[in-house]
């Protein structure tokens, strides 16, 4: 019951991959598993049925043309992936800028979806790209929503147009209209209008929203929706589409553990692209939405593209070039590299979020969620207490060395052991990934789409001699 969509999908595909030759009944089983996975993650039933029908047809159609072996499972997987991306909106769309500034963006959504926070994030996002946004406080309903927007505006250094105190007083339509005039007179090139949360069934408030729309003629109306929303996503998004209309969707609270469901339903039902994803309470935790990345996340492929981008911001070019070269050349990943990474990572912020983007993260979900951020500090201390030799070759770590390291870092010997064990396992996994052999649950060649299989060294262990003398003789012979 508590399994995430991701691990459900992983399960469905790992059982498919365990088959040598896939029959049409295997495809049916996989389709049923995917159906269940989608329903448990709140995708609307009609969307699920369409999706399943689509992939069933495509998979069955592709079946006769497939070679036997694991490629079959991967081809099916690719079909599912492509269908997901298609529903999620294909290529990501960007905000359309008005020919005559200001570009007007209006936010609409249910109560508590995260509109006010999002307003701040959008303002920050566009200000950083050299725009001059103005925030307009048209949520005069919720107590102190205006104050909240002012605080948010202040922290991102964007001015807030708030002539009315709110708390039920003032006319939101007039505020929005005056805001646009104000922006024009002060030469702001972008206006972001925050509006009150409203229910799809509340006709009066929906009318108010369409009045605001008619008064300001926005270039983009963004429907802001909580990623945790359930089946009501369909009714509510339809109500907003009918009541006020929208051009794009923003998914908020994607840093929670609800993924995918709402995104799929809304994108599929409304045919409006998801444009932005909000991933935290801090005002920089926000990005444009990438359908292919989201699909990867749903399928448990990890979000390597986002991870790489984040890493780019934090790692200096030297470190990352070094690492990249190392990875490609097939050299072993050492504790020294690990230390570099740890230090860069602490610059990147929240660890659990980063780990969640890794391929196969679905299966480590529990551990990732329970990740203790202080762990980085402690782990760094342990590695720093090692000599350069030890960092390069952890095999030399005997008992007395480990005791010394524990003492030096203020940890227990068992902590040191733990780190070394985990590091060895990770090293092994990376080797496997590079060699194209995936850790269980990952399709070959998919986990790291950008990773070329060049210079993959032959695994020497594979050539090791058999323990059985007869067999060994045979091998050597």
């Amino acid at each position, binding site marked *: *019951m508590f399994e995430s969509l991701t691990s459900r999908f992983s399960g469905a595909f790992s059982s498919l991959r365990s088959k040598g030759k896939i029959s049409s009944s295997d495809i049916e089983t996989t389709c049923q598993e995917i159906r269940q996975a989608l329903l448990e993650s*709140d995708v609307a039933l009609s969307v699920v049925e369409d999706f399943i029908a689509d992939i069933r047809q495509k998979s069955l159609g592709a079946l006769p043309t497939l070679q036997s072996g694991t490629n079959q499972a991967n081809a099916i997987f690719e079909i599912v992936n492509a269908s997901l991306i298609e529903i999620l909106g294909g290529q990501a769309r960007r905000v359309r800028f008005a020919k005559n500034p200001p570009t007007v963006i209006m936010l609409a959504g249910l109560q508590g979806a995260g509109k006010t926070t999002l307003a701040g994030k959008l303002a920050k996002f566009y200000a950083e790209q050299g725009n001059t946004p103005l925030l307009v406080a048209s949520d005069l309903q919720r107590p102190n929503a205006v104050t909240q927007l002012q605080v948010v505006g202040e922290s991102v250094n964007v001015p807030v147009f708030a002539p009315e105190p709110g708390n039920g007083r003032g006319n939101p339509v007039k505020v929005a209209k005056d805001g646009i005039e104000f922006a024009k007179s002060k030469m702001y090139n972008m206006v972001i209008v925050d509006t009150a949360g409203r*229910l799809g069934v509340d006709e009066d408030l929906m009318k108010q929203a369409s009045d605001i729309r008619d008064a300001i003629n926005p270039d983009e109306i963004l429907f802001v929706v909580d990623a945790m929303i359930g089946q*009501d996503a369909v009714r509510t998004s339809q109500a907003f589409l009918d009541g006020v209309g929208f051009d794009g969707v923003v998914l908020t609270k994607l840093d929670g553990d609800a993924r995918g469901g709402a995104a799929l339903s809304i994108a599929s039902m409304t045919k409006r692209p998801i444009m932005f994803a909000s991933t935290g309470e801090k005002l920089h935790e926000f990005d444009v939405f990438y359908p292919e990345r989201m699909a990867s996340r749903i399928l448990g492929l990890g979000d390597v593209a986002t991870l790489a981008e984040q890493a780019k911001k934090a790692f200096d070019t030297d470190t990352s070039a070094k690492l990249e070269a190392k990875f490609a050349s097939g050299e072993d990943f050492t504790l020294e590299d690990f230390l570099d990474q740890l230090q860069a990572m602490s610059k990147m912020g929240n660890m659990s979020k980063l780990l969640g983007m890794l391929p196969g993260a679905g299966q480590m979900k529990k551990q990732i969620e329970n990740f203790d951020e202080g762990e980085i500090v402690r782990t760094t201390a342990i590695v720093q207490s090692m000599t350069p030799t030890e960092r390069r070759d952890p095999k030399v770590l005997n008992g007395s060395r480990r005791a010394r390291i524990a003492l030096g870092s203020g940890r227990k010997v068992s902590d040191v052991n733990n780190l070394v064990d985990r590091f060895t396992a990770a090293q092994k996994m990376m080797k496997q990934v590079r060699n194209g052999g995936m850790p269980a649950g990952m399709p070959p060649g998919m986990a790291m789409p950008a990773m070329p299989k060049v210079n993959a060294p032959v695994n020497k262990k594979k050539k090791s001699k058999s323990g059985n003398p007869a067999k060994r003789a045979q091998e050597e012979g």
Partner: protein
Amino acid sequence: MGLFSKFIAKIKGTNDFSPADWAELEQELLSSDVGPKLAKEFLDAAKKVKSDNAEEALIEIMTQNLSKSSHEPITVNGTTTIMVVGVNGTGKTTSVAKLASYYKRNGKSVVLAAGDTFRAAAVDQLKTWGERIGVLVISGKENGDPASVAFDGAQNAQKSQSDVFIIDTAGRLHNKSDLMAELAKVKRVVEKVSPINEVLLVIDATTGQNGLQQAKIFTESVEVTGIVLSKLDGSAKGGVALAIEAELGIPIKWIGTGESEGDFAPFDAQSYIKGLLA
């Protein structure tokens, strides 16, 4: 009349329905957010129902899935201490205000603690409510330690011998272990002054199956004793709360149905279940 009622009308007095009817019923059950597991259970049960009172029979099956724990709000002699928790944007602050208003109208003295020191202007939001309702709001600095605000509030409530003391907390996603630890700390610190009698988790009625996970993890860290199902005035039916009752045994205690302080009532099983089927 909802799809479900139409369906019931259709099957009354017959046991001969087509697969299309079952698909329709499944659709209806799923769309109330009870989740695929409960939906399947209800569907299987419905398939056995043949009598004229199919609707009653189904209501009974669904009612059986409610928690065996009492759905009555907890009150104790002396100060009843209530902590309100939940993920972001479910309506915690509004629920705190509504609770305060409810108790005030019932002749109780109430003290509130503005423990959401994180979200911009959340403290002001609660203070505005406090002025409207006429109850004391204890607050600290924005970005201050929520545990210390709650502690001050608890001491104040004790000293003034208030009947009810309610702590608002910042919204937090349940998968952020550091924030969950902070919440557990608030509880621990308050309990140095007086025990927390009730921990209410606010679940937004629009929430899907993720609500289960929310309830599970919040319970692990602060022992949730009841659910406030908020925003039930929209088109969402809040079926995930039934899944929470069935799966985790946590009772729904309050229902929120609007933005005014009066839009709030103790849980009523019958109208909730009927609402799911509407």
